[in-house]
């Protein structure tokens, strides 16, 4: 069991260069246990970061700690505590589902009997029932994806890296996979790092995000404050004559945008007073006034498209 006060992983000025090409530049972050979304466009450095965290490659500079271990010095200690679900197909078609998952459990160090028992447990959990005795070559894409998840959690690791877990799934399969991940993420002492391009998946699943672009860390931390903080807009929900309320706001130098029974606008300092004055003058009832909460997609696009600057501390 991992002590609660121990960070899941910690990066201190981590750089990684392939030849002269920097893949990661000065990454620093301290990530607590939970469900973390690893985001970034292609070539952002997500894959390199996962490789570093799993001890598959050493950093060129800086320090990496996973559960307190240095993965480049203690790769096996780290990988005993880690599960990995790759994006690509990686199953052995000639093996049965239960045989394959049990074998992966044994490769993680489980004794034979325990590995077989847990293989049945996790396959039941992911929804592979009688099919587990059939060869993997006969499985559908969705079933293969679920077997990939099962093999990642068979040894009950405290941390799982999931690379595009919903890739290639139809809407129903995607919803089922997200449900499974949500159940997993709610288990105690279980953390997930989800690398995905499907940003709505992150919104429903993750507590924290790590957003990379061109090898730099653009944002890291809890998702909700990040989403609220990046938006400069204020949302007003009201009851009353929308036309008159809008007119009064414009007369006070504000530029509202109407969306049904809400107005969106960028408020200057002390702008809230002007809003309430406009409401009073137009006989409108203001029901709520607050900072607009954006989507992960908006956050992603605004940060990725912003000019590169020094990574935030």
């Amino acid at each position, binding site marked *: *069991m991992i002590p609660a006060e121990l960070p899941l992983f910690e990066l201190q000025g981590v750089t990684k260069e392939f030849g002269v090409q920097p893949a990661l530049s000065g990454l620093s972050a301290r990530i607590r246990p939970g469900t973390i979304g690893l985001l970034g466009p292609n070539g952002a450095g997500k*894959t390199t970061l*996962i*490789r570093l965290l*799993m001890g*598959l490659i050493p950093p060129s500079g800086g320090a990496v700690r996973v559960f307190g271990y240095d993965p480049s010095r203690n*790769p*096996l*200690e780290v*990988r*005993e505590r*880690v599960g*990995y679900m*790759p*994006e*690509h*197909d*990686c*199953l*052995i*078609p*000639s093996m049965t589902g239960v045989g394959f998952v049990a*074998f*992966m459990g*044994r*490769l*993680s*160090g*489980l*004794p*034979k009997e*325990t590995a077989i028992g*847990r293989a049945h*447990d*996790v396959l*039941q*959990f*992911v*929804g592979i029932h009688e099919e587990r005795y059939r060869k993997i070559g006969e499985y559908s894409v969705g079933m293969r994806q679920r077997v990939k998840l099962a*093999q990642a959690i068979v*040894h*009950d690791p405290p941390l799982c*890296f999931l*690379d595009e877990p919903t890739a290639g799934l139809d809407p129903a399969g995607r919803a*089922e996979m997200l*449900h*499974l991940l949500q*159940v*997993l993420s709610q*288990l105690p002492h279980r953390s997930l790092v989800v690398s995905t391009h499907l940003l709505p998946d992150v919104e429903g699943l993750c507590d924290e995000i790590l957003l990379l672009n061109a090898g730099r860390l653009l944002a890291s931390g809890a998702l909700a404050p990040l989403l609220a903080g990046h938006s400069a807009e204020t949302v007003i929900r009201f009851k009353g004559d929308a036309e008159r309320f809008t007119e009064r706001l414009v007369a006070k130098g504000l530029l509202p945008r109407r969306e049904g029974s809400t107005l969106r606008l960028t408020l200057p300092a002390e702008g809230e007073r002007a809003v309430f004055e406009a409401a009073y003058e137009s006989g409108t009832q203001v029901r709520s006034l607050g900072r607009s909460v954006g989507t992960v997609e908006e956050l992603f696009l605004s940060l990725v498209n912003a000019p590169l600057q020094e990574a935030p501390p």
Partner: protein
Amino acid sequence: MSISAPRYAAAPVPLQGREGRVLALFTREVVARFGWGTGLVVGLSYASVVLIIVVSAEFSSIVGGPTVGSFYFPYASPIWPFLVLIGATAVGAGCISEDLGSRSITLFLSRPIHLTDYLGAKASAVAFWIGLMSIGPGLLGVALVGALGLAPLSVTLPAAAAYLASGLLTTLFFTALAVLLSSVTTRALYAGVGMFGITLSAEIAGSAVSGATGNSAVGYVSPIVDLQSSASAIFQTGATTLTVPAASAALLIGASVLFFLVAWLRLSRVEVVGE
């Protein structure tokens, strides 16, 4: 889908060490490589070699008693090495190429094992089957000769040791060749064709060029000739061979080490995450 996620309320199971994980990989590979093709070649090797040993010992006992040198007979023709080559192709061609083709190697290497553990387990499993064909028949033949009273213990014991030594050399070379070729392709078929192609073309080209030019040094390119030459020295036959036995043995061992090294270098370039 089940109602709830699996929860392990019991104390965490202590994980096995690297040895346990390597053993799991080795065991699976040994079992996976057993098929009708492997069984057929193993059976043929035992039937033919044991028959040759017993018949030649029977003949030697009539004409004055077998010596250690008379047990060299199965190596006098390239039949046994070729049977081992067929068997090595059956068990070795897919040992790594299938993992590369299915990309399951990325999952294996994401587990708490080193690349050397993976390579060692695969090579050991292939060596197990090749050893069964290159060492087992000789030892069984000698045991039968001893049991039938065709040769005294003073002859059968050194003969068994000689079969063990020459069989180990054969196992080492063909294992290394299989591991190398299997690690450079994602298709077992290509690796198998490569094993046959390299061994047979070296044998044919070596004997043709050496026959045409009279240069016996060309014989070194053929692993079969090298194996026969090494075995003749191990069995102390005193027969004249195309190559110097010690040089042939050194060449086989050196080539095997090189093959393993190249396979390791190739597999170290496999990208476990994000390939």
